């Protein structure tokens, strides 16, 4: 993390890989880009390689920002699952980013490898509507059980009160 200021993705001649999965760097941090099919195998390999803790699991809805930078060969999808793994032995972190298509927002659970992802995956399900196959208890965790919609999706209205000096002029249309 100390070399944090390193700007942008390092572009080597041949694309770097780890466990046969594309590897990139974001602000000096290592990022793996497996496909949905490679996802479990990649994480299993990382677990075997001393990454014994899953620090964080979250998702991003890239609905309104499709043109983001991704390594060649990765097709941008609407959702992206972001998993941060931690190796206590080597004091390292690695991030796994998986593209999840809008048409079929589902992905395998990591519960078998990291039981601690139970709540995090439920949160992602609750907030983004991404389902995790074989998750033991895939229910809403933060919102009420009968809630409709998934609040952190970009097409979910936030229903805010417009503020003065807002630069978001579309949001100023309070009349409706």
């Amino acid at each position, binding site marked *: 993390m100390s070399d944090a200021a390193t700007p942008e993705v390092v572009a080597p001649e041949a694309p770097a890989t780890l466990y046969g999965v594309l590897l990139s760097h974001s602000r000096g941090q290592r990022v793996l880009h497996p496909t949905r099919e490679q996802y479990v195998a990649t994480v299993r390999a990382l677990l075997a390689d001393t990454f*014994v803790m899953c*620090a964080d699991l979250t998702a991003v809805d890239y609905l309104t920002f499709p043109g983001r930078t991704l390594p060649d060969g990765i097709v941008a999808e609407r959702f992206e699952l972001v998993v941060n793994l931690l190796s*206590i032995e080597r004091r390292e972190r690695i*991030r796994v980013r998986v593209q999840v298509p809008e048409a079929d927002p589902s992905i395998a659970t990591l519960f078998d490898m990291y039981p*601690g992802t139970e*709540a995090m995956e439920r949160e992602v399900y609750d907030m983004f509507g991404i389902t995790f196959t074989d998750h033991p208890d895939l229910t809403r965790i*933060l919102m009420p059980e009968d809630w409709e919609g998934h609040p*952190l999706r970009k097409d979910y209205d936030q229903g805010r009160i417009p503020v003065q000096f807002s630069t978001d002029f579309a949001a100023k249309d309070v009349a409706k």
Partner: protein
Amino acid sequence: MTIEPDVHDIVATIREGNEAEQGLKPRSELTARELLREVGAVLRMSEAEAAKLGDLPVDPSEDQTMIINMGPQHPSTHGVLRLMLELQGETVLRCKPIIGYLHTGMEKTGENLTYMQGGTNVTRMDYLSPLNNELVFSMATEQLLGITDEIPERAVWMRMLLSELNRMSSHLLFMATNGMDLGAVGMMIYGWREREQVLRFFQKVTGLRMNHNFIRPGGVAADLPAGWRDDVLHLLEMIPPRLEEYDILMTGQPIWRDRLQGVGVITQEEAMALGATGPILRSTGIAWDLRRDQPYLHYDQMEFDVIVGSYGDAFDRYAIRLNEIRESIRIVHQILDAMPSGDYRIQNKKVTPPPRARIDESMEALIHHFKIFTEGFKVPEGEVYVAIESPRGEIGCYIASDGSATPYRMHVRAPSFVNIQCLPHMMRGGLVADAVAVISSVDPVLGEVDR
């Protein structure tokens, strides 16, 4: 019920002090330093004995058990945590934490606040260590901006000072609530009293007791006020004797030990698998502290010890927090020696608004000031995850930026959110009264659990 005789046997062993060299010496024979090392680390039941306490009673038939709800309004649940407990008599067979009662969509809100406003949002998540929240958010923003190395020295040291004092205030509050939950009501007043002294210093520096929005991308909001050093020194003189009092009041006290030792045991494997961090992970003997293991700010220059336990029980977690206050005091002493003079925020026009005086003389400064506070500054496209050690464990901030002035996605990895997953494991086979001790020892802050 086989639990009670066991406890008494073990306690009797502890009282007799026949654990050979590890016996507790009388307080009068100890130097302060020895005491500091010894407190919480000696005279404990063996791991096998502690594990025996966690054993489930043999298969309960269903009509003998009862499911009750504890919380969300129960005072010992630290806010609005609700636990569904399956009980057989007084024994907890299963436990399921149910959260979300304090969910206010802060991550969604964060997507609509500029990076400069974002601090006001994240600071309200873990309201007991607001400065650490602000710090991790600011550090993530700075990494995206690529200005991490340009933050002025004084700002870095001020951040460390505030972060450590915040750790002290948070742990002092833990002392208070832990005491209250276990019936040491006097302790509640004492812990609160000391914490208030620290908050008074925060008020002097930031203007507010909590929710400061003081650490901002690019540095801190203002310089330290006149006389700050005396105030800190006063705190550093005042708190250690009070910690000694806590030792007398709680650490060495038989009832306190009875209530905490062997309660809420968690193993190393469980803690790591569940992603637990902070005092919970350290109580199992894993010396993992991001301040030492993945140093940020100038923690690599600090000399301090990572306090670990050996049994993973509630007493370890109590003792770790108590001694972490002492370690923080050590760190603050070193910060006081090292505090440089100079700028307290980056002199980068892009991030920092012009000083008030400039606005009176320069039209450009006025425009610039207005633009920064209305539109905010743009942050280059990218994504970053930054983690620091908060009093409760690893607090992480994941920001994905689309190049605009607001985060495209702002996610906070809240330590309490992950840590409360340990509750079912810790409570299994324990008593209802111990459930209160277990919740307390995890020290969750529901503000960041639900966000």
